[in-house]
């Protein structure tokens, strides 16, 4: 990948990231991912042709942080909105940024079909095992035994079925070209996460099909934990059920 000349200034704010305070809770994983996205967009020099789609959820105010054209979409419909945009302007780089309630519950039809069509769009999927914005209800990714405001005694499979592994599911679909699960629970994982996001965008830039990066993210607020506890919980509870992996990647050309 081409690097910019001023590579050493890594602590500078990326051009694509705006200098506003975010609305995310302190220690939330969302903020990290927003920054990674901004860095990747800068590094590919695609800020001026990138269009983002953020649906409702804690994702919704992403347009306040990224200095790019953005849609706010209805709950669950970001992949359909992105499809409409990309089909009109195929030269645009279009991504969606969706929570687990959005991507895996109310919008799972749009998610799967965008992948099946091999839409040349990228999804950043924030899996925090909970509905963040509405105050901590059970998500389709909530773990068995995990307490939420709507599974107060802990999720049971008898009542609420099993958490969905979206990466594994989408990896079975031919139209999906790049599928990876990463986490932002520690600096090493953050570096891996950025690599995956770059590959996903690269897949789109090369027109190879649908790409998706699932980011295991921590929600200290609705998990009722300190930020540090919450990153430990990602590693101790989420990763065993949601293993980090690159499930599918386009064959290297050249």
């Amino acid at each position, binding site marked *: 990948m081409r690097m910019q000349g001023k590579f050493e200034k890594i602590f500078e704010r990326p051009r694509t990231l705006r200098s506003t305070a975010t609305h995310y809770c302190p220690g939330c994983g969302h903020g990290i991912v927003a920054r990674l996205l901004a860095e990747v967009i800068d590094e590919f020099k695609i800020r*001026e042709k990138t*269009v983002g789609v953020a649906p409702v959820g804690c994702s919704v105010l992403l*347009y306040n942080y990224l200095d790019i*054209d*953005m*849609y706010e*979409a209805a709950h669950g419909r970001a992949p359909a909105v992105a499809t*409409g945009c990309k089909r009109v302007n195929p030269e645009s780089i279009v991504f969606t940024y969706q929570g687990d309630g959005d991507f895996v519950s109310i919008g799972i039809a749009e998610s799967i*079909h965008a992948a099946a069509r091999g839409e040349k769009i990228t999804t950043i999927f924030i899996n925090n095992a909970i509905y963040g914005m509405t105050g901590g209800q059970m998500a389709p990714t909530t773990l068995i035994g995990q307490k939420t405001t709507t599974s107060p005694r802990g999720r049971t499979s008898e009542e609420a079925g099993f958490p969905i592994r979206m990466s594994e599911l989408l990896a079975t679909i031919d139209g999906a070209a790049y599928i990876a699960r990463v986490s932002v629970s520690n600096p090493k994982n953050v570096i891996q996460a950025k690599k995956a996001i770059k590959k996903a965008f690269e897949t789109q830039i090369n027109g190879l099909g649908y790409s998706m990066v699932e980011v295991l993210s921590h929600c200290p607020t609705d998990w009722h934990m300190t930020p540090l506890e919450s990153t430990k919980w990602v590693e101790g509870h989420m990763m065993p059920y949601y293993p980090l992996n690159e499930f599918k990647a386009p064959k290297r050309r050249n």
Partner: protein
Amino acid sequence: MMKKSFMTGNEAIAEAAVQADCRHFFGYPITPQNEIPEYMSRRLPEVGGVYLQAESEIAAINMLFGAAGAGARVMTSSSSPGISLMQEGISYMVGAQLPCVIVNIMRGGPGLGGIQPSQSDYFQATKGGGHGDYHLLVLAPHTVQEAVTLTMEAFDLADKYRNPVMVLGDGYIGQMMEPVEFGRKTRQSTHPLKSWALTGAKGRPPNLVKSLYLNPKELEEHNLEINKKIQDMIKNEVRVETLLIDDAEIIIAAYGTVARIAKTAIKVLRERGLKIGMVRPITLFPFPYETFAKISKRAQKVLVVEMSLGQMVEDVMLGLSGQGCVRFYGRTGGMVPSYDEIINETEKFITEGKA
């Protein structure tokens, strides 16, 4: 003279859209409008456009949201149950001020209902349908030719007001074949510059397509801005056809296919020496209240005929503001009122008064 084609209303609507520079269509199959997506799937690739069958009507309307936001002229079509499923997305498009054309070829409801012609989505189309404070501009053709003209205009109006426009037809408008002419004569296309479109923030500050305003004061301002456009529509866009109303003692109010049936009834009644006229709203929103206000001053009787159990009749009564005498006749579930029935009702109205 322009070359005449012989087409179904559905195909004519699709071709009209193409001629109005619509290059993107997203939809999901449902009777009785399938000829629209079928036509588009053949035709759009010929002109460098995109036809995409969505996985649901929900996806379809959100694809419209994306395509309209990217600056394209875009259309979807469906029939009653599918339009219900689109309501959330339609509300979002109004909120985000995105133009698009939505065709509803109505069938009988509620629920799965039937597939025969109906006008029972009048309330949904004209009063909002989705959540929030809004209206769509609603155009109701009564011939295939008019379906063509109105579909072409729908794109211009959608762009002009940055608001979704609905073309509302019953099953017969979609299925019927009639001669039609296309061409510039019927069309005055305007393509306003869409500087708000999401095409990448190149050499300008980023654009944003959104409808969330958490601060109630901001949301009120936003809604007032939308309402200002609605007031402009009311001022500028009312369209109505009147027929023989000056000397009429009874006026039949009807739209779409029912208006055509009523025209035949009126011809027969006039031959019998009865003074009957007609008011046919072409825009259902904005509704021609003024026309009815004038009628109320002349104390004429109004017979409202619909393929529903009484929806437009409420707007007619609003227009008459309590004056005059209104009678309603409707068939529902896919049953179509015949001219004999309308003739009967009119004659009863003369002798009995309101029903």
